[in-house]
C-alpha cells in the first residue's frame, strides 16, 4: 500500500496559485508566438519560405494533371476526384493569406477538442460513477473555459473566411448554370450550407457551455454544502452531456474537418476525429496533473492515479490507431478513385510535402505511445508519462494538420514560422485561461462522495 498519503479530505482545501511570475512567462510566450507569427506572415507575403517554387510546381502539376487525369498530381486546392474542371482556374487565384486562415482554423479546432474533452472526461467519470478520478477532476473541469476563446474564433473564421477553407462555400458551386457549378456539392447543400452550419456551431457550442457552467456551478456548490444530493445531479448533467456530445462531436467532425475535402467522405470520420481529440485531451490532463505535482500541488494524487491516466492514454492511442487504420484499410482495399484520392494526396500528392507528416503521424500516435506506455512501471513513472504525453500531443497536432492542411492550402503547405507562431500563441492562451480557471476552486473536490475511495485507490 505504498504511496498512501495521510491526507484527510474533510477540512482540507488546496488552492493553485497562479503567480505573477508564471503569468509573465506565459504572456512572454504568447508575445513570442505572435512575433514568430508576424515574421512568418511577412516571409509568406514575400514568398521567401519556399512558397514560390512550390507554387510554381503546383501550377504545372495542376495543368499537366488536367490533361493526363493523373489523380495524384491533380490534387490541388480543394479537390477530390471528379469534377476538377475548375481546379486549374482556382489555382491561379491562390492567395498566400490562405495558409494563415488554415492555421487559425487548425488550432481552433485542435484546442476546441482539448477543451471539450475536459468536460467529456468529467461527464464520463460521473456517468460511470468512477471513484479514482475524483482526486483530479478539478483539472479537466477547468479546460472547457477555453471554449469561450475557440468557439468565437471558429465562428469568426467561418463567417469571414469560410470560402478559403471550405470548397462548398465557393461562389456559385450550388448554382445551376454557374461556371463553378458542382453537382456533387449541390447535392450536399441541404446539410452543408451557411445557415445550418452556423446554427449547428452556435447551437451545440451553446449547449456545451451551458452544461459545463451548470456542472461547474454544482461542483463548486458541493465543496460548500457537501452531501450526496449534488452528486446525483452531476451524474444527470454528465449523462445529458455525453448524449449531446455523441451527436455533436460527429457533426462537428463532418462540419469542421471532413467538409474541407467536400467531395470526399468517410463513415469513420466522426469517430476518427473524436478519438484524436480524446487521446489529446487525456494527455493534456495527465501533463497538467504532472506539472502541478512538480510544483508541489496534489500530493494526494499518487502513482495509482497516474497509472490509470497512463492506461487511458495507452488504450486510446491504440483506439485512435484502430480507427485510423480501419478508415484507411477500407479505402485502400476498395480502391475507389474518389475515396483513395484522400490518402494519395497525403502520401504522394503535392510534391510529397505531406508524406513526412503522415509517417510521423503513425509513429507518434501509435508506435511510440504503444512502446513507451506498455509496461506497468512506465505508466507509474512520471518521466515516461511525460515522454508519452509529448508524443501524443505533438502527434495529434500533426494528425489535425494532416486532416486540414492538404485540403485547404494543398501544395502551398509546410511547417514554418506561421505554424510555430500560431501553435505557440494558442498554447499560451490555453495555459493562461486554464491556469486562471484552476485558481477559482480548490484543487481537491473536498466533498466529493468518492474522495475517500480515491485516496485509497490501489491497483
Amino acid at each position, binding site marked *: 500500500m505504498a504511496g498512501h498519503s495521510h491526507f484527510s479530505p474533510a477540512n482540507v482545501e488546496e488552492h493553485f496559485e497562479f503567480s505573477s511570475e508564471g503569468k509573465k512567462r506565459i504572456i512572454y510566450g504568447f508575445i513570442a508566438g505572435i512575433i514568430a507569427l508576424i515574421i512568418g506572415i511577412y516571409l509568406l507575403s514575400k514568398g521567401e519560405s519556399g512558397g514560390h517554387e512550390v507554387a510554381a510546381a503546383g501550377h504545372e502539376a495542376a495543368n499537366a494533371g488536367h490533361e493526363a487525369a493523373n489523380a495524384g498530381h491533380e490534387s490541388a486546392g480543394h479537390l477530390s476526384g471528379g469534377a476538377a474542371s475548375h481546379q486549374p482556374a482556382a489555382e491561379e487565384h491562390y492567395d498566400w493569406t490562405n495558409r494563415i486562415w488554415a492555421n487559425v482554423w487548425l488550432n481552433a479546432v485542435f484546442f476546441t477538442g482539448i477543451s471539450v474533452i475536459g468536460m467529456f472526461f468529467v461527464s464520463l467519470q460521473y456517468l460511470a460513477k468512477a471513484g479514482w478520478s475524483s482526486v483530479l477532476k478539478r483539472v479537466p473541469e477547468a479546460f472547457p473555459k477555453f471554449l469561450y476563446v475557440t468557439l468565437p474564433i471558429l465562428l469568426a473564421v467561418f463567417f469571414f473566411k469560410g470560402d478559403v477553407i471550405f470548397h462548398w462555400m465557393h461562389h456559385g458551386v450550388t448554382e445551376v448554370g454557374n461556371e463553378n457549378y458542382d453537382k456533387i456539392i449541390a447535392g450536399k447543400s441541404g446539410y452543408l450550407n451557411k445557415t445550418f452550419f452556423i446554427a449547428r456551431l452556435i447551437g451545440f457550442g451553446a449547449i456545451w457551455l451551458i452544461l459545463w457552467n451548470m456542472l461547474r456551478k454544482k461542483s463548486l456548490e458541493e465543496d460548500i454544502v457537501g452531501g450526496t444530493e449534488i452528486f446525483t445531479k452531476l451524474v444527470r448533467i454528465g449523462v445529458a452531456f455525453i448524449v449531446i456530445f455523441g451527436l455533436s462531436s460527429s457533426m462537428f467532425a463532418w462540419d469542421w474537418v471532413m467538409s474541407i475535402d467536400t467531395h470526399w467522405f468517410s463513415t469513420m470520420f466522426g469517430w476518427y476525429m473524436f478519438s484524436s481529440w480524446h487521446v489529446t485531451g487525456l494527455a493534456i490532463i495527465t501533463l497538467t496533473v504532472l506539472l502541478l505535482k512538480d510544483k508541489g500541488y496534489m500530493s494526494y494524487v499518487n502513482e495509482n492515479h497516474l497509472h490509470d491516466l497512463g492506461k487511458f492514454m495507452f488504450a486510446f492511442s491504440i483506439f485512435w490507431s484502430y480507427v485510423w487504420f480501419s478508415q484507411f484499410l477500407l479505402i485502400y482495399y476498395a480502391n475507389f478513385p474518389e475515396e483513395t484520392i484522400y490518402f494519395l494526396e497525403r502520401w504522394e500528392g503535392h510534391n510529397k510535402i505531406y508524406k513526412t507528416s503522415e509517417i510521423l503521424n503513425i509513429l507518434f500516435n501509435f508506435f511510440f505511445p504503444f512502446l513507451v506506455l506498455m509496461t506497468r512501471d512506465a505508466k507509474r513513472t512520471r518521466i515516461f508519462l511525460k515522454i508519452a504525453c509529448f508524443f501524443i500531443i505533438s502527434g495529434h497536432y500533426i494528425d489535425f494538420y494532416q486532416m486540414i492542411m492538404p485540403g485547404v492550402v494543398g501544395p502551398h503547405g509546410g511547417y514554418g514560422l506561421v505554424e510555430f507562431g500560431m501553435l505557440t500563441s494558442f498554447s499560451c492562451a490555453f495555459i493562461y485561461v486554464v491556469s486562471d480557471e484552476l485558481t477559482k476552486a480548490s484543487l481537491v473536490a473536498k466533498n466529493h462522495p468518492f474522495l475517500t475511495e480515491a485516496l485509497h485507490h*490501489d491497483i
Partner: protein
Amino acid sequence: MSSTNNYILGVYDDENEVLHAVSEVKSKGIKIEEVYTPFPIHGLDTALGHPRTRLPIAAFMFGCLGLVCTQALINYTMVFDWPMIIGGKDFFALPDWIPITFEGTVLFTAFGLVTTFCISNDLYPGKKHEILDIRITDDRFVMAINVDKNKKSAADIKKALKDSGAVEVNVK
C-alpha cells in the same frame, strides 16, 4: 500439501484484520507461506511481500511469437507457395494482413498466457484440490504458516496469530 501437521492456520473473519495481521505477524520475524481469501484483497500482495508476477513478460513474448508465426504463415502461403493477386494488390500486401496479424498475436497471447498460468500454478484438468479450510470459499480468511520453514517454535507462532486477532488457530 500433505497433512503432516506442519501447517499452522490462523483463521480471521475480517479482511482488514487479516491485512493488518499480515504485517504484525511478519514484524515478529515469522515467514508467512500464503493467505487464502474468498475474494481478492487490495494491498495483500504488497503486504505479503510477494514478488510481482512475471506473466506480463510472458504475454509480450507470446505476442511477439504470434506476430512472427502469423506473418510467416501468410508470407509462406500468399507470397512464396501459391502467390495470389487479390484486389489488384501486390503479393506482399501488408495492410491487408494487419487484421489477421493482430488476431494471431492476440490468440497466441491468450492461449500462451492461460497455459503458462496453469503450469506455473500447478493446475491441470482433473487436479484434486487441496483446500486447507473449506471456509476460505465462504467468509473466512486463512493465513497459512509452514512450521518447518520457520525458526520460531509452533507455540510462538500460535501465540502470534492469536495476538494478531485470529478467531481460531488450527494445525493441519
